[in-house]
């Protein structure tokens, strides 16, 4: 028996969220007294086996089916369901990302079992008890799960990635799976690259603007500071609703969840929808004219003032 972690990767680039899933699974496995094992899907994905071992997987099951080189939710979900049939794990865990949640939804549908998305903590017992995210992180739900094989995804930043064990090598076992006939219909057919370089999800500094920026042109002062710091500009929902920035720049419950070293929130009041997307930042600096703004109150640091005075002054001396 094991806790089986479905490893997310994109053409053999490991997704960091998978390391959080491995760390979370280690806690569940310790409660059950079983090992953590990893499931790697894709011919070349086996190159990630040692990294999985370094993060706690005792055995890596490798699905080397040639049709699974690229991602497709039905195919990957089918592979997970098929692997579950062969390995009979105590539980299946994946990251609570777009892909992780999608693959587990497919697998759970195939297995006709419950799937609990975005868990923060788990207590194993006859009926498992879990704390999970609701309202995009504004509320937590205490839930109980009756299932012969718990299937759950791990909320973003719910587990600390463990230090890798140096020199760990994985025991790799090749696993044959049966895929659903429908699997090919949902495979990725093409990719369009729009930008190289830092993104909201990876930038060390995000300079965010809210209603207080006032216009599309107003973002120039944010762009200038972001460029100096090797960061990127983000925005609140009010900004995209006003058409000042594209939706892709939105930080929040229905936009991107960010976790930079520093989030500089300029002219942002700090509504729940925005806060849940920004709160994983290591440090938050709010720049706002209103010292009572929610963002200022919740931030680590604040400058009280007009962002059009403050930002150019910072940019000038950096």
């Amino acid at each position, binding site marked *: 028996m094991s806790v089986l972690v479905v490893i997310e990767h994109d053409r053999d680039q490991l997704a960091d969220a998978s390391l959080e899933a491995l760390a979370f699974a280690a806690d569940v496995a310790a409660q059950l007294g079983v090992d953590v094992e990893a499931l790697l899907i894709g011919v070349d994905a086996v190159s990630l086996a040692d990294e999985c071992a370094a993060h706690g997987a005792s055995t890596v099951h490798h699905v080397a089916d040639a049709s699974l080189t690229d991602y497709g939710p039905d195919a990957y979900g089918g592979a997970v369901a098929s692997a579950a049939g062969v390995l009979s794990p105590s539980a299946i865990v994946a990251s609570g990302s777009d892909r992780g949640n999608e693959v587990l939804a497919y697998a759970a549908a195939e297995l006709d079992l419950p799937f609990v998305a975005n868990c923060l903590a788990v207590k194993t017992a006859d009926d498992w008890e879990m704390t999970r995210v609701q309202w995009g992180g504004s509320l937590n739900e205490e839930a109980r799960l009756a299932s012969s094989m718990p299937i759950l995804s791990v909320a973003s930043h719910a587990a600390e990635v463990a230090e890798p064990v140096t020199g760990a090598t994985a025991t790799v076992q090749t696993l044959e799976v049966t895929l659903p006939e429908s699997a090919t219909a949902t495979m990725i057919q093409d990719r369009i690259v729009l930008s190289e370089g830092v993104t909201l999800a990876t930038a060390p500094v995000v300079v965010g603007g809210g209603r207080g920026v006032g216009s599309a042109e107003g973002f120039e002062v944010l762009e200038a500071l972001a460029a100096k710091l090797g960061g990127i500009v983000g925005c609140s929902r009010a900004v995209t609703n006003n058409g000042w920035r594209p939706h892709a720049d939105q930080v929040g419950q*229905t936009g991107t969840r960010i976790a930079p070293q520093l989030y500089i929130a300029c002219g942002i009041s700090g509504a729940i929808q925005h806060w849940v997307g920004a709160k994983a930042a290591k440090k938050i600096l709010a720049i706002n004219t209103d010292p009572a703004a929610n963002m200022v109150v919740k931030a680590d640091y604040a400058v009280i003032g007009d962002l059009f005075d403050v930002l150019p002054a910072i940019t000038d001396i950096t």
Partner: protein
Amino acid sequence: MRVLVCVKRVPAPGAKINITEDGQSVDATNLGHTMSPHEECALELAVQLIEAHGGESHVLTLGTAEADEQCRWAASIGISKATLVDAGSMDWDPQRTASAITDSIRSIEEADGGFDVMIFGNESADTGGFQVGVRVSRALGRPMVNAIKGVEVDLEADGKGATLEARRETDNGFEVYQLPMPCAIGVKEGITWPRYPTMRGRLASKKLAVDVAVSDAVPGGQMKVRLNRPEEKVSETVILGHGSEAAPAVVELLKELGLMS
């Protein structure tokens, strides 16, 4: 073509979401209700697809009888038909919800014909289960991709039959999927820009006949015990200064955090 869009009535949160005393739900006393933001965009997409290709759109919701309001909102922007599965609750678990929606789609399709495209929100704004669309699509044997931010329908794609091109945003661009129709997608906010209803639309929505259905779907394995507010990180905000005079202190902070040398 025939397009189905599934929406969920949820409380419209303000700056803070309060919980009822018994911990079972969001205290909506001072909040209005709306639908999940992803689904507002899903509705708009359904209307746009029908405008571009002709046909009929249908909105389906599961919840309390008050979700009639969301059905009429949908009609006010141009959706032609509506079905409300009256569950007497907004809190059915994902398996039960999916099972009831699947049954309802089967009976709508039996009466009116099959849907070419089914559109779901990526996840509901409240419970965030991330699975109902996938479960429904799987049960109906249709391909489904979630987290979609761009769509193009080609009804005669190079002799391959009707195809829906769906784009999913990634860190640096898009992944592209080609789904043979009939198919389903889960969409994210930003895929469309929801329109406001016209006066004519509002008047028409009052006349909409909402088909109310009941379901005998049985509960699944996930049970809510109670809701809690997460512990907020308590941080004493350090005020670095006022106006442009604070700039040197900000630069010091950037150096301290290793973000500049």
